[in-house]
């Protein structure tokens, strides 16, 4: 009778395991389906000129269609715009986020810190379209025009909470002995943070930054209110500028350009995947 019970329990165990595996497989299906679809449709659009040429003009497109040739042009303007805005956003968000995260990690129980921590959560949960419209009011209106600067402000605001949190969490799991050893040598809090704690937390913070970048690189809504878009490669930061996700939206709205959607999507997807894998790999490496 006892044996029977055990066998019964083992069977239940097995059933459990199988159903968990099945569910896990089910969640993987949409992911793989997305990847497969984008890959299949976008694969033959990827060519060298796709990355080096800007969006084709309407004239060129019509000519190509008349001649029965494939649509010329590419997404160079979007790639350049995305890189410029990301670069500016990272330059501001990283130091600011680290500073804020360090403050939260050190003063967690303080009232003001709890308030800031709450704001961080709030910011993280704010829909990106709202961040876009706010940035429009704050930056585009005073500057009297759409610009790369405005776009990078929106991206920066979106990255901040992620960097703050990853900095805070990484600092919190460092052994207390590290900080104590620094302070025991006579260092003040700021120097111990700069010279001992932050360097030791570098891996986690860097991973957080990568994840923040991969999180905002595909943002479209906030850029519609701020960067607007631009059909040629441009390096000016005070003028409207393009971005890869903006291009996907534009291609979708232009019946003549729909062929280009999938190449751009594939590029974006691969970029994000690479960043994610890289951050996972680095996190693993640094945790050893």
């Amino acid at each position, binding site marked *: 009778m006892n044996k029977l019970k055990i066998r019964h329990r083992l069977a239940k165990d097995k059933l459990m395991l199988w159903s968990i595996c099945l569910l896990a497989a089910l969640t993987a299906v949409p992911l793989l389906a997305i990847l497969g679809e984008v890959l299949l449709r976008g694969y033959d659009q990827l060519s060298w000129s796709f990355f080096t040429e800007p969006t084709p003009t309407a004239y060129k497109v019509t000519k190509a269609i008349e001649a029965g040739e494939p649509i010329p042009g590419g997404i160079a303007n979007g790639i350049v715009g995305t890189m410029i805005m990301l670069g500016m956003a990272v330059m501001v968000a990283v130091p600011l986020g680290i500073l804020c995260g360090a403050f939260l990690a050190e003063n967690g129980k303080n009232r003001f810190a709890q308030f800031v921590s709450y704001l961080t959560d709030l910011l993280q949960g704010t829909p990106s379209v709202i961040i876009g419209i706010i940035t429009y009011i704050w930056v585009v209106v005073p500057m009297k025009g759409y610009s790369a600067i405005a776009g990078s402000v929106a991206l920066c605001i979106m990255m901040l909470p992620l960097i703050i949190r990853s900095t805070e969490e990484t600092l919190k799991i460092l052994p207390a*002995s590290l900080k104590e*050893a620094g302070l025991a040598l*006579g*260092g003040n809090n700021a120097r111990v943070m700069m010279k001992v704690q932050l*360097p030791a937390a570098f891996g986690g913070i860097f991973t957080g930054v990568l994840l923040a970048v991969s999180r905002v690189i595909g943002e479209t809504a906030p850029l519609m209110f701020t960067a607007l878009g631009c059909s040629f490669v441009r390096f000016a930061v005070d003028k409207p500028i393009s971005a890869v996700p903006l291009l996907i939206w534009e291609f979708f709205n232009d019946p003549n350009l729909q062929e280009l959607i999938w190449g751009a999507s594939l590029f974006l997807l691969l970029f994000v995947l690479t960043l994610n894998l890289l951050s996972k790999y680095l996190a693993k490496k640094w945790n050893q």
Partner: protein
Amino acid sequence: MESVKPILEFKNTCVSYTKQTMAVKYVSAAIERNTITAIMGPSGCGKSTLLRAVNLMHNLYPNIRVDGEILLNGENILAMEPIDVRRRVGMVFQRPAPFPTMSIYDNVLSGFVLNGIKLSKAEKDATVERCLRSVALWDEVKDVLNKKGTFLSGGQQQRLCIARALAMKPDVLLMDEPTSALDPIATKHIEELLLELQKGVTILIVTHNMGQARRISSKSMFMYLGELVEYGDTETMFTNPIDERTKSYLTGKMG
């Protein structure tokens, strides 16, 4: 001999982690300059707590209360700026903890960096060599100074931590069971080192190891349940302890 002014003096020092209980109760003792004083006692009796009061480590945690006085050269530490105290009172922890992101070279100099003191390249080189020689580590690491400190063996790491503390030329060196994580050979090296170092610095060392206390210290404290039960010459304490509790601890009848 008695006329020598103590370098460090506890006067009714109390430490409490919570409102209800005291982890260190009314400890009074005067520590002589350039001696090694061992703090012994069963686990949880407040040895680390007492030691950490001296370099104001308890200040980091707002709930911990330290009362009474601790005098360093006659000046009450508890009323001083923590940074000033910690420059004059070095500490070596139980687990060797070189800064993991710094090279051996930078670890030795970390005290200067953390205090915002700029040194010339020549001064740096000289300090690194002097400090590593004083902990008998120079010959072993002089060719790998740019490697991370964490590549060294446990005993080497602990000597590096001692060098790092000595670089700041402290008056007092606090050591909390510095050899408990080390093997017997590394332990022996550190003990020999401490006997050498006491010529230049006053050492207060917490140890679980009675043999160690006897080998290196001239004075010993025995603590029990937060109280300083007995304090005196190490040899006297081992051969002729006054208090029953000391006797039963030293004879191994107590944890």
